[in-house]
């Protein structure tokens, strides 16, 4: 079952296209990381998934073909927006009360227990809680609805390292206990390496890369060799080139057992290296189905 499906989705704000013909199918049971530069359309996409806005063209379905924004979809989705907005003058207990009354399904016992474990003072106004406590409160309110899909927009941007660790540990524990699927956007690639097992790279309103991270890493190699031999690769699916006077590094789509030409060395790539390479080459793509990166000539970055 696909937890998120987008078919030719576009979204326009005035004259600006925030999303253009995005097609995506994210299977359930994953932590999907959504990365891309500012203005790439990450928040727009997440808002469409959460049903907070409507696409200008195309359709988004969630939780296996439920139209985004429909009551059936909203019932199974919890969304924590950027900077975890809350009513700053309400106490944590009031936020609990409010959320319980606004949702037909809310696990009061779970929420109370969790806030107790986290030592979050229920009587304090949410505006007076620390950034980490606010994030944990928002997460608790979201998880107490026992969603099947948890959508997090830049959840850790405001948190210190310890609070980030605890926040992600809470999300991962919910995944074990409840089987919730997670989609989260983030700028911190290194942090995603631990938690994400599905990657979506967006640039300029388009989906550039989508796939399970294991598969993506297994199908890419970094080749290092003499810069003079670069032309050999004109016909190969090269994603990104870094070239010096004598030596060149090529990120190519290739499997571990693909032959390496004499004089060249092949190295496995990590998530951060892979994502950065694609972010630098908005023209390249790695999407399910036939490889679209083939035949693209990357711009060369000369050092």
């Amino acid at each position: 079952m696909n937890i998120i499906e987008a078919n030719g989705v576009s979204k326009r704000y005035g004259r600006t296209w925030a999303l253009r013909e995005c097609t995506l199918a994210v299977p359930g049971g994953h932590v999907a990381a959504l990365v891309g530069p500012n203005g790439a359309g990450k928040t727009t996409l997440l808002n469409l998934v959460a049903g907070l806005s409507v696409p200008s063209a195309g359709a988004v379905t969630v939780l296996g073909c439920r139209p985004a924004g429909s009551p059936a979809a909203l019932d199974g989705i919890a969304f924590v927006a950027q900077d975890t907005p809350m009513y700053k003058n309400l106490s944590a207990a009031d936020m609990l009360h409010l959320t319980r009354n606004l949702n037909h399904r809310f696990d009061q016992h779970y929420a109370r227990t969790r806030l107790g474990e986290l030592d979050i003072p229920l009587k304090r106004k949410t505006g007076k809680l620390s950034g980490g406590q606010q994030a944990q409160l928002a997460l608790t309110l979201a998880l107490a609805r026992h969603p099947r899909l948890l959508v997090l927009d830049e959840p850790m941007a405001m948190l210190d390292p310890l609070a980030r660790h605890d926040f992600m540990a809470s999300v991962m524990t919910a995944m074990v206990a409840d089987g919730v699927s997670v989609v989260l956007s983030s700028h911190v690639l290194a942090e995603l390496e631990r938690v994400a097992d599905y990657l979506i790279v967006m640039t300029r309103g388009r989906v550039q890369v989508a796939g399970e991270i294991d598969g993506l890493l297994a199908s890419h190699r970094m080749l290092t060799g003499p810069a003079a031999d670069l032309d050999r690769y004109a016909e190969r699916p090269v994603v990104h080139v870094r070239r010096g006077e004598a030596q060149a590094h090529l990120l190519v789509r290739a499997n571990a057992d693909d032959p390496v030409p004499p004089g060249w060395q092949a190295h496995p790539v990590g998530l951060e290296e892979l994502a950065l390479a694609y972010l630098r080459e908005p023209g390249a793509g790695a999407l399910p189905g036939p490889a679209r990166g083939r035949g693209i000539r990357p711009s060369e970055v000369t050092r």
Partner: protein
Amino acid sequence: MDIGKEVSAETGRPGDVSTPSGRPAAASPIEFRLDAASGVPTYLQVVHQVEHALRLGYLKPGDQLPKVRDVVAALAINPNTVLKAYKELETKGLAAGRPGQGTFVQATLSQVALPELTGLHRSLLGWLASAEASGLDEDGMVALFTSALRDFFDRRGGSAGRRGAASGETEGVA
């Protein structure tokens, strides 16, 4: 809830994912740690640490591996990563999942008893001291030991002992 079942269906180990939290469980003898800078994939770090613990006798057959939810809560990593590591250990015949309970050690890698290991450790420390006295630094010692190890087993024509003893470390060194 369905997704939880899906995750476990893939690994064939339903109990591991949905173990009730309230059950008093015998804690695992080991805890995992993560070295983000090592460049070794997370699941492999878990596999290596279990093999290491088996080799040094910290883990014995019948011992329980840390529960998935405990590992996830302690390290803030994706549960699928832990499941992948445990599946790999099952494939190697080192561990086995018990529905509703968790994953347990099934075989051992340590062929030597603990007192003898301590003795070998001590004599190795003696060797290290003399290597340092001769002017070798840490990298030099590793290089020398690795090459001696290779010579030793090459001379014996790839004996059976080699696979068990060196497979875990070779990836880290190479």
